[in-house]
């Protein structure tokens, strides 16, 4: 392919009829003249056809997985509702919030020492208890309480047995990389999490940084796996547990 050729992605868009009319004309005439691009387009079509050959099975598998999903979606909504309710309270406390904002800049200057502790509370049926033996059930609703000795920035990751990483906090729907904890003491995180029904091993990685910084999830994972230090004395706490029906 030459510099004048459309990108493979543009050929995909052309193939799926997701280009504008002028683009379509331009690409069509290019395909007539170019010795390379028709082969790329054919390759795209071949790969698509290879997947579509097994479409009934793929559809069935996806449907089964999607039908297991609504519980998690419901939880997200629950979080959103909780946050909405808290937002009203937060508006009333705007003055206090402004005061805290001035304090945030000072977070980096205070000594960032002390412990980070994580408590996982499980609601199962009518009962509520603390996760202490590393065993949970698929329909358990989990809530997390973080105890810290200083204000800081929090990220909570859940790693499943297959190595899949899910960011629990801050809620991805809210954007941002960190959830600000505005002081020392106990912080009950909003919402609850219900895990998939599949049996799996999980690790909960809780990272607390003293300032907002660029820190990839992979760096947090690496630090948890290897014990390597993270920048700025960022602390990590790991909670492991298994779900089984």
């Amino acid at each position, binding site marked *: 392919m030459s510099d004048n050729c459309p990108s493979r992605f543009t*050929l995909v868009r052309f193939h799926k009829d997701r280009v504008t009319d002028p683009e379509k004309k331009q690409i069509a005439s290019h395909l007539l003249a170019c010795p390379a691009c028709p082969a790329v387009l054919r390759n795209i079509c071949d790969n698509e056809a290879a*997947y579509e050959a097994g479409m009934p099975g793929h559809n069935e598998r996806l449907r089964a997985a999607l039908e297991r999903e609504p519980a998690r979606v419901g939880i997200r909504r629950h979080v959103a509702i909780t946050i909405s309710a808290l937002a009203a309270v937060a508006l009333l406390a705007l003055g206090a919030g402004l005061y805290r904002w001035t304090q945030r800049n000072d977070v980096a200057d205070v000594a960032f020492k002390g412990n980070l502790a994580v408590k996982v509370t499980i609601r199962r049926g009518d009962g509520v208890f603390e996760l202490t033996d590393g065993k949970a059930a698929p329909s358990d609703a989990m809530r997390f309480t973080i105890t810290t000795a200083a204000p800081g920035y929090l990220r909570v990751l859940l790693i499943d047995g297959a190595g899949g990483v899910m960011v629990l906090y801050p809620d991805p729907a809210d954007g941002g990389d960190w959830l600000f904890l505005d002081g020392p003491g106990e912080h009950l995180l909003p919402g609850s999490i219900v895990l998939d029904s599949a049996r799996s091993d999980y690790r909960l990685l809780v990272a607390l940084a003293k300032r907002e910084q660029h820190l990839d999830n992979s760096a947090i994972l690496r630090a948890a796996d290897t014990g390597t230090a993270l920048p700025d004395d960022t602390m990590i706490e790991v909670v492991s547990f298994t779900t089984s029906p």
Partner: protein
Amino acid sequence: MGSGTERISQIETLHREYAGVIYDLCLRILRDRIAAEDAVQETFLSAFRAMDSFTYGDSHLPWLYRIGTNVCLKMLRTASRKGAVPDEHIEKYGSLKPDPARAMHARRVLEQLSRQLDDRSMQILLAHFGGGMSQEEVAQSLGISRRAVVKRLTRLRAIAQELEDADHE
């Protein structure tokens, strides 16, 4: 956002329309037919979970490409930690000029890179070489400047060349 049933129906419609080309993307990154099929499924599950964040008016295709690229990145990292993919699973499929040895080498390079590079560099690399996006399309897809894309790709020039060769030589 609709009810659970409506959401499932929306994702199934997207799956019927775009799964084949997302498979093309995943196959070109993972070089493993079974892993690519798993990645397609995971892409549409992730899309289902992220439907609230999808802005209507945006095209679904770049959105699904972005999700698919991230799913593949996650799978590369998992595989690189576990050494999970046997060589014989890595196939010629997805390349213009099939060469299993080169495909396997490209896959190993990506696994190794996934351990060393930050998320953003990997997203750029995978979108450019796996997704076959131009620098401009990568920039638009990731919401960054073209200059930032060029800068990272230049820094990774040698690796980029190796991946390009694996596909075209």
